[in-house]
């Protein structure tokens, strides 16, 4: 193997790829949330944000391609890491007890991640792969969220995402070697704050759209 892929193929290398792609997703979530918050400015404000975004043209396509590549790396590497770790303990303990390290987020990373994958596909089918020639994006939203089942699915998915990043954000810094007595407690706190912001920020949009109807 060559000199670059060889280190990246080790356990630590694979974790580095998880961390870089995961942080990329965190940046995406931040930007996506900032954009979506325009919905609280009313439907015209929101539609004009969407128009502005799409007027960026090739830049948007580039970002989408980047996210797709990141997703492919994150998902395949995550699945491989999970499978290898399962194999590393063929006989499980009959009594399992936490010593205080594990959190809800850290214990569920592969599962919350997998649900997120299903959700991302569902989400793209709802709002991305649709013909938008005769309909504004806001109408698309209000059509979807008129249905309480959609509100339910989106709320659950957002909570799952919040749980995933509550461990992921801090963990990515640790994986990249950033652990410091002064900053690590802050980063752990930041992960929780970020997950709450993501949870509440995205979580109320479907409800808000429903109430606007």
């Amino acid at each position: 193997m060559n000199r670059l892929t060889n280190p990246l193929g080790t356990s630590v290398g694979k974790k580095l790829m998880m961390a870089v792609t995961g942080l990329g997703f965190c940046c995406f979530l931040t930007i996506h949330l900032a954009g979506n918050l325009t919905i609280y400015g009313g439907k015209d404000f929101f539609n004009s944000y969407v128009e502005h975004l799409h007027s960026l043209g090739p830049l948007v396509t580039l970002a989408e391609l980047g996210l797709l590549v990141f997703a492919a790396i994150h998902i395949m590497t995550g699945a491989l890491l999970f499978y290898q770790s399962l194999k590393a303990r063929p006989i499980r303990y009959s009594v399992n007890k936490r010593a205080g390290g594990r959190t809800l987020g850290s214990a569920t990373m592969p599962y919350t991640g997998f649900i997120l994958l299903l959700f991302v596909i569902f989400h793209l089918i709802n709002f991305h792969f649709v013909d938008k020639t005769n309909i504004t994006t806001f109408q698309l939203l209000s059509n979807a969220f008129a249905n309480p089942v959609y509100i339910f699915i989106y709320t659950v998915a957002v909570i799952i995402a919040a749980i995933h990043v509550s461990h992921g954000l801090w963990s990515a810094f640790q994986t990249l070697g950033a652990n410091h007595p002064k900053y690590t407690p802050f980063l752990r706190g930041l992960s929780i704050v970020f997950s709450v912001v993501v949870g509440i920020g995205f979580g109320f949009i479907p409800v808000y759209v429903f109430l606007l109807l």
Partner: protein
Amino acid sequence: MTKSINITLKVWRQKGPHVKSGFETYPATDISTDMSFLEMIDVVNEQLTLDGKDPIAFDHDCREGICGMCGAVINGRSHGPEKGTTLCQFHMRHFSNGDTIVIEPWRAKAFPIIKDLVVDRSAFDQIILAGGYISVNTGGAPDANSIPIAQEIAELAMDAAACIGCGACVAACPNASAMLFTSAKISQLALLPQGRLEAANRALAMVRKMDELCFGNCSNERECEAECPKEISISNIARLNREFIKAGLVSSVK
């Protein structure tokens, strides 16, 4: 005041590698709460021997928390639930009359069971052999203080060097990863000028060996740090990651 308790043990019994095995239940009566956990097993073993049964095999040596030989998972906690202690330093006063205690060996593919609670931890030796050393030419010993080392750095290196290689980190890790052990061994050398010379080779070689031995992948669960009898910090794992990034992605070392 000395108190005696009666407890029930559920112990993993396994005659040898790859043989069918399972839990056996034994009563442990009249156990002084002043006993250490291993002394309690000694008492149970005495009775088992008198009854013509095979005593429970377990590893131990110093019985004062310095050698790293002992260790088992007690009710789901490596070395028992006390913080910063090995199994030999864990005492029966933490139990009450009538308790049932489940005793399991370290469970990891890389630590195959030899017998009962005894596991083969030579995988750790192989990780050390891959790079956990420095190369020095023989000859006159250099003057002790010829290379100045800052006190904080010396302390950090000593903290990492406190690792006794017991394997509790692997046992406690939900992924059976050996990152805490390996990071302690990489850190104790990487922090010091004498260890810097081979740091890049060492980081790559030890991580590769760790993977080859089928340990799991670290996912920063922090269970290792919580269970380590020497309270080795996961900041060492971050240092391993930094050393690995420098060696694998920046240095020209293969």
